[in-house]
């Protein structure tokens, strides 16, 4: 890239500096800050191409760090602007998939509400002024010659580069203090790793390992490998949890317990393993686990009390699983397990007034800490405080200096995955708002503010010696940049097991309720609260958007006479909080779940004022409390922007499930001959087109995490419509996740009586445990599409390769197509949803996909732009191509590989193989629409002891 730029400089006949000036001027004129600002340093595309062809995107490997752990990514860049994030198949935490946060991170890069200026107090300042204020003499004067008054508060980091810089800082200021804090970060010195491919029986204890945590993409992939009955022996999966999670809904058997009942349940399980008396459920589980000793695994949530984690470890040890399905490695986090680095010790110092200079980089401690700490006013009292952050948020408000932080897509750095694997963070663009990285901040503190982070990173890798030295280094280094990952850098397994403290947990009050604190599945700890894609991405359990709610069980709701949206008051000790309630089928009784991340009051326009801040109730050191109370606030309500209100299976059976036994005895479905007056159409493929596109979705593998939805949104320029429009039922997602209530009928909204429609429908749903089943629903590309004949102007037509095409130019917006679509996957631009989009957000748009205007219909296109690109590339190269060469955005993002796409004439492809299995079916097939999307029924490996076959 730098070559191209140098060439341009030559052609312009000017110096590099004048070129930059020119660039800056033209950008200023265009009113677009940072458009196509490719980093000057040498970033290398994932797939080497000799030169940059305008119009063809490049992919670069980088890493996104969340709570200290890296996930490797490949980022699509169009003429120097990143537009789409994919997973890096070479990275252990990704394996090619990308979760919702990774997918949505590209929007955060272009967020117009990001901080744009260095600020001191209310005055605009600059990086060099900050460098002057923090130069050695000044700092020693301020914080003491040994730096005893210098405190750093960083986000947990696994970066060797940052670690080295911190070491150098401590050499310079030996008495300085470094603290790491993120509300959801783990702190143990040893971390557990699991292998779900080896586990025949798995038990998740309050753990959402399939959809959250640093390795969830990998775990989801490995877990799903054992959920395909055609591919080999299925695992049997149990879940014990308080709140309903994605992972719990994927279980074969699920037990809902209040948090305070979980430790006794684990104790009982441990006892039952030693043949002692237990409940039926625990007994059956214990029997199953024992029968699969050394091939089973118990996964405990890191948010559980240490006693529960210790019990889970004991159970694993008793079963001989340790070293097989579960093992431990050193935590890749810098300073892990060392209490000196904790937030608590910083708060003590703040209270004691020992902090002279506080440098706070990343995170948002002013918001995301237990309210009881009162950290905001404490920070405000510090004589000199610096905050480096993405937004002018709660923390920035309390700090003297504010420096805009660089987004990871603008940063040079390195980081480790959960298992220790090293990867690089390389920028796709120059910092859009002149922002700075933590590496630069640390460089500044050690008195080297002008060393370019790229040079620093490269030198650090050269000195570290993990790559070949001398002339060979450049080759190795280029390879690392290209692939993003350093192979073989994972930490070795440790023989030791972590030790857990046994702590006393006082009840927060005299109430009878437990409160469960959880990261929000969409905005995490609040870090993503200003991201419209994530705000509008329905919660995977409740489909709630743009809000958080107190989740309670139907029985509790009935007892307390609470309905969805009723305002309730939660009281824990002296603290209370008001928020709307939401009834969640399957939630444990006598417990209420609340999610972090809402109730923000910084300067972030999207996040501000949305939802309730549950840090107000959070004690800070544990994720559930007992003794709380909940009461309804009479007459007060808040409309909840849910995207789905009904989960009944009364009128149709869009989701299907079989027990393993049913599956094994299942005869291939014989479809009744359709009686028709019309000539039968030729069976496809009929030779009119080289490919006939189709999709197969495995409901056994799908966990409903929603990664596909964000991937689709990013790829296809799907607009964000906002809470009011979601309330009106106008969300625009081309791909949505439908949830259906399975299991026994229960109170609340969800009735359930499975209607048997013919012999082909078999139900393997649990008859005793209330659960939900996910179904990704997108345009089914019906061969006999009801939308097509309804359109008066032929704006939706069928292509020769089997796509149901939408011609935006021709659409007049009668919406007849949507009315006639039984799947209701069409989306209408009720108003101009792209009006008022900031110039930076416009940069996030995929240039290969039309941005739709007001008044036209839109829907899933099977990523037609990707299909046509592949076609064109093949034509240019004078070759034919296989259908599997094209991958849709949803398919690519899916961590469990539940979505398969390809061509029907590719008989060998997994997609075709899957749709010809016994469990394949079409949704609403009795309507005769002949959809091109086929679903595979979920197979449920029920325990015969818990559920005798009917």
């Amino acid at each position, binding site marked *: 890239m730098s070559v191209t730029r140098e060439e341009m400089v030559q052609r312009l006949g000017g110096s590099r500096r004048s070129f930059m000036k020119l660039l800056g001027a033209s950008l200023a004129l265009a009113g677009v800050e940072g458009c196509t600002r490719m980093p000057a340093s040498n970033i290398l595309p994932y797939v080497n191409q000799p030169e940059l062809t305008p119009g063809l995107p490049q992919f670069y490997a980088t890493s996104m760090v969340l709570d200290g752990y890296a996930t490797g990514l490949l980022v699509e860049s169009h003429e120097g602007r990143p537009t789409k994030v994919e997973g890096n198949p070479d990275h252990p935490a990704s394996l090619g998939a990308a979760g919702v946060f990774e997918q949505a991170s590209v929007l955060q890069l272009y967020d117009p509400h990001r901080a744009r200026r260095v600020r001191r107090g209310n005055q605009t300042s600059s990086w060099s002024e900050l460098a002057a204020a923090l130069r050695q003499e000044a700092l020693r004067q301020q914080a003491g010659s040994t730096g005893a008054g210098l405190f750093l508060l960083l986000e947990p980091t696994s970066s060797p580069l940052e670690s080295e810089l911190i070491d150098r800082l401590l050499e310079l200021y030996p008495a300085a203090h470094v603290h790491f804090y993120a509300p959801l970060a783990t702190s143990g010195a040893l971390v557990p790793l699991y292998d779900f491919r080896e586990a025949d029986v798995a038990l998740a204890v309050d753990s959402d390992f399939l959809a959250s945590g640093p390795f969830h993409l990998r775990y989801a992939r490995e877990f799903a490998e054992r959920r395909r009955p055609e591919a080999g022996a299925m695992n049997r999966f149990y879940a014990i949890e308080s709140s309903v999670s994605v992972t719990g809904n994927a279980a074969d058997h699920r037990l809902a317990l209040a948090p305070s009942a979980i430790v006794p349940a684990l104790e009982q399980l441990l006892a039952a393993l030693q043949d002692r008396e237990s409940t039926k459920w625990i007994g059956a589980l214990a029997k199953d686990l024992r029968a699969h000793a050394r091939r089973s695994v118990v996964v405990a949530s890191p948010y559980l009390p240490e006693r529960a984690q210790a019990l889970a470890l004991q159970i694993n040890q008793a079963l001989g699983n340790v070293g097989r399905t579960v093992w431990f490695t050193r935590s890749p986090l810098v300073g892990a397990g060392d209490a000196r680095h904790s937030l608590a010790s910083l708060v003590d110092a703040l209270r004691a007034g020992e902090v002279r200079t506080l440098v706070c980089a990343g995170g948002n401690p002013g918001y995301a800490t237990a309210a009881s700490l009162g950290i905001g006013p404490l920070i405000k009292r510090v004589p000199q405080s610096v905050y480096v952050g993405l937004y002018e948020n709660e923390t920035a408000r309390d700090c003297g200096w504010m420096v805009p932080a660089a987004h990871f897509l603008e940063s040079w750095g390195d980081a480790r995955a959960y298992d220790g694997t090293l990867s690089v963070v390389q920028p796709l663009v120059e910092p859009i708002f002149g922002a700075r990285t933590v590496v630069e901040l640390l460089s500044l503190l050690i008195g080297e503010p002008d060393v370019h982070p790229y040079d620093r990173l490269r030198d650090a890798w050269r000195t570290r010696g993990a790559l070949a030295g001398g002339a060979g280094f450049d080759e190795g280094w280029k390879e690392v940049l290209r692939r993003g990952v350093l192979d073989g850098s994972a930490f070795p397994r440790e023989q030791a097991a972590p030790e857990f403290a046994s702590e006393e947990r006082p009840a927060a009050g005299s109430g009878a309720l437990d409160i469960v604190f959880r990261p929000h599945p969409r905005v995490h700890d609040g870090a993503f609260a200003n991201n419209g894609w994530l705000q509008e991405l329905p919660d995977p359990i409740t489909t709630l958007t743009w809000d958080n709610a107190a989740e309670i069980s139907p029985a509790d709701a009935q007892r307390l006479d609470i309905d969805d949206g009723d305002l309730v008051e939660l009281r824990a000790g002296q603290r209370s909080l008001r928020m709307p309630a939401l009834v969640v089928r399957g939630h444990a009784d006598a417990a209420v779940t609340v999610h972090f991340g809402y109730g923000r009051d910084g300067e972030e326009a999207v996040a501000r004022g949305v939802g309730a801040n549950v840090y107000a109730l959070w004690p800070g050191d544990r994720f559930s409390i007992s003794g709380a109370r909940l009461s309804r606030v009479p007459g007060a309500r808040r409309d909840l922007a849910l995207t789905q209100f009904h*989960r009944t299976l009364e*009128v*149709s059976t869009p989701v299907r499930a079989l027990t393993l036994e049913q599956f094994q005895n299942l005869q291939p479905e014989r479809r009744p001959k359709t009686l028709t007056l019309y000539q039968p159409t030729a069976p496809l493929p009929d030779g009119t087109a080289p490919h006939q596109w189709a999709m197969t979705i495995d409901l056994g593998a799908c966990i409903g995490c929603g990664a596909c939805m964000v991937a689709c949104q990013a790829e296809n320029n799907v607009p964000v419509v906002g809470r009011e429009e979601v309330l*009106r039922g106008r969300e625009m997602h081309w791909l949505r996740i439908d949830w259906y209530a399975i299991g026994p009928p229960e109170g609340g909204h969800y009735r359930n009586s499975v209607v048997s429609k013919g012999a082909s429908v078999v139900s393997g749903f649990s008859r005793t445990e209330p659960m939900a089943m996910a179904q990704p629903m997108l345009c089914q590309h019906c061969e006999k599409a009801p939308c097509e004949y309804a359109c008066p*102007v032929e704006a939706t037509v069928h292509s020769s390769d089997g796509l149901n095409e939408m011609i935006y130019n021709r659409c*007049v*917006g009668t919406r007849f197509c949507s*009315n006639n679509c039984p799947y209701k996957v069409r*989306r209408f631009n009720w108003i101009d949803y792209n009006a008022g989009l900031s110039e930076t957000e416009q940069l996030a748009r995929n240039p290969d996909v039309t941005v739709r205007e007001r008044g036209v219909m839109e829907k899933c296109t099977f990523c037609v732009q990707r299909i046509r690109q592949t076609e064109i590339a093949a034509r240019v190269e004078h070759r034919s191509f296989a259908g599997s060469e094209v991958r849709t955005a949803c398919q690519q993002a899916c961590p469990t590989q539940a979505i398969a796409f390809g061509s029907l004439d590719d008989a060998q492809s997994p997609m075709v193989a899957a749709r010809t299995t016994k469990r394949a079916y079409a949704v609403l097939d009795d*309507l005769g629409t002949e959809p091109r999307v086929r679903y595979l029924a979920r197979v449920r490996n029920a325990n015969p002891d818990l559920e005798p076959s009917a």
Partner: protein
Amino acid sequence: MSAYGAAVVVDRAPGSRDVAPVDPGDLAIVQRVLAPLEETPRFWLVLFAICALGTALGLFAVGYTLWLGIGAWGNNIPVAWAFDIVNFVWWIGIGHAGTFISAFLLLLNQPWRAAFNRMAEAMTLFAVAIAGAFPLLHLGRPWFFYWLMPYPATMGVWPNFKSALPWDAAAVGTYFLVSVMFFYLGLIPDLATSRDRLTGRTRRRVYGVFALGWSGTSSQWRRHRAALKIIAGIAAALVVSVHSIVSFDFAIAQLSGWHSTILPPYFVLGAIYSGFAMVLALAIPVRGWYGMQTIITIDHLERLAKLLLTVCLLLTYCYTAEFSTAAYSNDPLEHATYFAHWPAGPFGWLFWTMLVLNVVVPQVLWFRRYRRNLNVLAGVAIGVLVGMWLERFIIIVSSLAQGALPSTWHGFVPTWVDWGILVGSLSFFGLCFLLFLRFVPAASMGELRRHRIEKIYDGWP
């Protein structure tokens, strides 16, 4: 007939070609019908002001819709059609009675139609014009409405003839043109009478222009009668076809609640039903206000009431057929639509209100006493109008709201713009009708006079 053409002139002004009657009975008819054209009563002014206000509200709501987009309404996915199409079908239904009364009854030689036909035809015209505006307005991009018409576009694209919407556009367009012709053709002799009988230079000139030189010769009358019968024949066919085609908007869809073969006759009957109701609802006050009791007699109203009852029974049969077909289908979705979603869904109370207003209340018309009670008659008519609007609402919104996938179910809440446009359309209708009453002879003088004479000479009932 002959007594007609060669009128003897008694009170004509010098130079005029008045074809007005010598007979005092004839004269009474003419004076009674023409009286409103010469004065502006107070009630007219008040009503006009109210309707003008409502129209302004409607225009504002329409302007807001055009400015913002369809998002100004409460429509959503799945309820992509709501008030827009409900109003369309309702108004087009009302627009059926005029032609039905005029054309069918003309073809069937029912002379009593003359009391209402002009009013009904005017009503048709206004209703169809208003109805026609809704499909245009409800488009996402209304400025491309002409893409629904088959015209030789440079790109060589045609409308999709498989879709019911271009049929709809063609049918409604044709119906409107035929209605205009039918109305105007019937009006010509009366315009001539107005020209000749009214005072004031401008007025005479304007009516003179529109009278197209009618002089009342027997050859003109002969041709007029023939033309009227031909257009009546065409219009009668259209009455059946237009609303059948409107019903295809729903019947050709696969949506449960729409997908029903009974819909064409059902919709035609529903249209006539609401049309008769509207004629009654208009005729009753108009005859009182303008003292036209001798022209629109209580016997006439009773005949209309009997027709209303007949259509009510036919429609009730359609309801029964629709529900029993659904029951017989053994399709869980059909069962759910007709036996759960419509009667017990979020709009269940509207469904039951609709049944009461459309089926139960009109049964009072079995009794002569009530058929001749103007208050009862007006109440029943307004009830049917509301009921028919609700029927369309149930069919359209309730079916859409709860489709084949429960995950997609979503309610519908109208916005102020929805209400504004509905109120605006009613007001605009009122406005047009008031102008019609003020400037156009509200009953067919020519026909009334002919029937009177025929009654005298031929002993017609």
